[in-house]
């Protein structure tokens, strides 16, 4: 493996002149950078850390506390560094059947992050709620849904940065220059033509899932041609999140829509492998999860809901009465507005519950299933059905309307 080139500041950091926290962070980044053949570092302007305590565990929290306890040299982040959803909504933890040890671990993680100067935004839709990156901005974002949206829709430059690497980027203000920080890695590698422009969020998610399965690995870059009109942010949010989940994809192009792909020729070399995807493939993917009969719980999450999604959901909840639990999960930035506009009350008057700052699958979904007896779960998120299969659920994918109907009847037909 070739050694990365370090500038004077980076050599000082590695030598410990900026303290042990920055030194440890840079060492970690060099290991990753050299693994991928990075020549050097690139400065980043923002970092976003995925660090729910279900993933961290006791070991991860102790590691964070060790970093946060240091008082020598640079002791915190040096660029705006924000967080992905937490493992709970503290106000609703008892309802979710979460234990005091989960909550305690969560509090310790938050304390450590705050000591490191991290801003606890607890959101996976920061591009809608905190600050969207701009074209050509190099960032170090975690959460695959955040990365694929930022790269594809915003034209920013990021790899998937897991928690330790995103935190390291926050602490050093840079990241190894490999993968999607390099212009040549952003060219399309597979062409997908479609004659189906989805309308609903579940159809957008399912189309993203189909494209993700075709493209199939992190280094693949699909370009999609044939979408009519201009999709909305929430539609591309579900499209990208599902593609990232099903295919580990970090960047897509959509001809005439995304900023690097005004024309196909701008990003696609001639002779790319090409696939056709239509309504049949999208419907087949959804049908593969469908099971008639009883429903235990309805969940809107993954990604967290925007204000517009909550507005649409509230409208569907008027004059309804749910027979099974309905959970809608949003960010701490959106929740106060949802309260203020009356959306939360309309959803909760029907028997639903609006959660904030968590995301269903990052919040001990397996333990929740056992505590609440939930197995047959209905959602409009293609990302969520993909994940929860591995957590002992039988997930089903339907439109927002079908999900609300299922909450009323307790059945999916």
């Amino acid at each position, binding site marked *: 493996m070739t050694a990365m080139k370090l500038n004077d500041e980076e050599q000082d950091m590695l030598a410990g002149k900026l303290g042990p926290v920055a030194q440890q962070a840079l060492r970690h980044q060099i290991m990753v950078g050299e693994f991928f053949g990075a020549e050097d570092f690139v400065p980043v302007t923002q970092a976003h850390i995925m*660090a729910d305590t279900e993933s961290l565990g006791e*070991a991860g929290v102790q*590691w964070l506390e060790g970093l946060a306890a240091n008082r020598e040299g640079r002791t915190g982040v040096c660029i705006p560094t924000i967080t992905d959803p937490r493992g709970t909504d503290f106000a609703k933890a008892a309802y979710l059947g979460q234990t005091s040890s989960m909550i305690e671990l969560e509090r310790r993680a938050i304390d450590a992050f705050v000591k490191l100067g991290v801003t606890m935004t607890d959101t996976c839709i920061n591009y809608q709620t905190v600050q969207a990156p701009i074209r050509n901005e190099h960032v170090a974002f975690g959460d695959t849904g955040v990365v694929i949206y930022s790269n594809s829709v915003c034209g920013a430059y990021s790899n998937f940065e897991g928690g330790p690497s995103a935190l390291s980027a926050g602490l050093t203000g840079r990241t190894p220059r490999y993968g999607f920080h390099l212009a040549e890695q952003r060219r399309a590698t597979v062409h997908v033509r479609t004659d189906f422009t989805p309308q609903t969020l579940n159809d957008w998610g399912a189309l993203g899932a189909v494209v993700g399965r075709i493209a199939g690995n992190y280094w693949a870059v699909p370009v999609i041609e044939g979408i009519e009109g201009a999709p909305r942010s929430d539609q591309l949010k579900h499209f990208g999140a599902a593609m990232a989940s099903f295919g580990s994809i970090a960047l897509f192009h959509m001809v005439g829509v995304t900023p690097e792909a005004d024309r196909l020729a701008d990003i696609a070399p001639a002779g790319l492998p090409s696939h056709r995807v239509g309504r049949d493939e999208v419907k087949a993917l959804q049908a593969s999860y469908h099971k008639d009969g009883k429903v235990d719980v309805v969940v809107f999450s993954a990604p967290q809901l925007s204000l517009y999604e909550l507005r649409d959901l509230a409208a569907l909840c008027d004059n309804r009465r749910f027979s099974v639990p309905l959970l809608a999960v949003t960010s701490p930035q959106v929740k106060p507005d949802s309260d203020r506009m009356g959306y939360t009350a309309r959803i909760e008057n029907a028997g639903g519950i609006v959660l904030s700052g968590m995301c269903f699958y990052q919040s001990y979904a397996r333990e929740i299933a056992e505590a609440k007896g939930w197995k047959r779960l209905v959602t409009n998120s293609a990302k969520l059905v993909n994940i929860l299969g*591995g957590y002992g659920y039988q997930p089903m994918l339907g439109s927002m309307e079908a999900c609300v109907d299922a909450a009323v009847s307790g059945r999916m037909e």
Partner: protein
Amino acid sequence: MSVKGKVFQARHAMGQRVRGTALVASDGFSARYDLDRIKGIFSRPSHQLAGRSYVGKILVVETAKGGVASAWMLHEMNSRGMAPLAFVFNSVNPILAQGAALAHLPMLAGFDEDITKAIPDGAELEIDPARGTITVL
């Protein structure tokens, strides 16, 4: 045909030299989606290795899938002595590499052949990241 003594060269490598038994599948790997991390087994029913233990094994699989959480999970699994001994991938995404760096687990990726076809399940291997090699013992 015996593969004993055969050496495979990886383009990407990190970590310490180890010896162990290969657990091989032409399937993906995601710590969040595919595993019961408490029991140390593959739990996703559709996974080729469903029901099998990965603890202490050299896991030889196709690629790393989804899940930014894996970056923390390898460290957490290793702290309980419930992690694979090492990872070998045809193709790896950054998350697993970042996770292996945090957990100090050896990882090799990128070969001239399909490594999941070249190495038999259950083979005894030596992984040498400094040289980027896998040797079948």
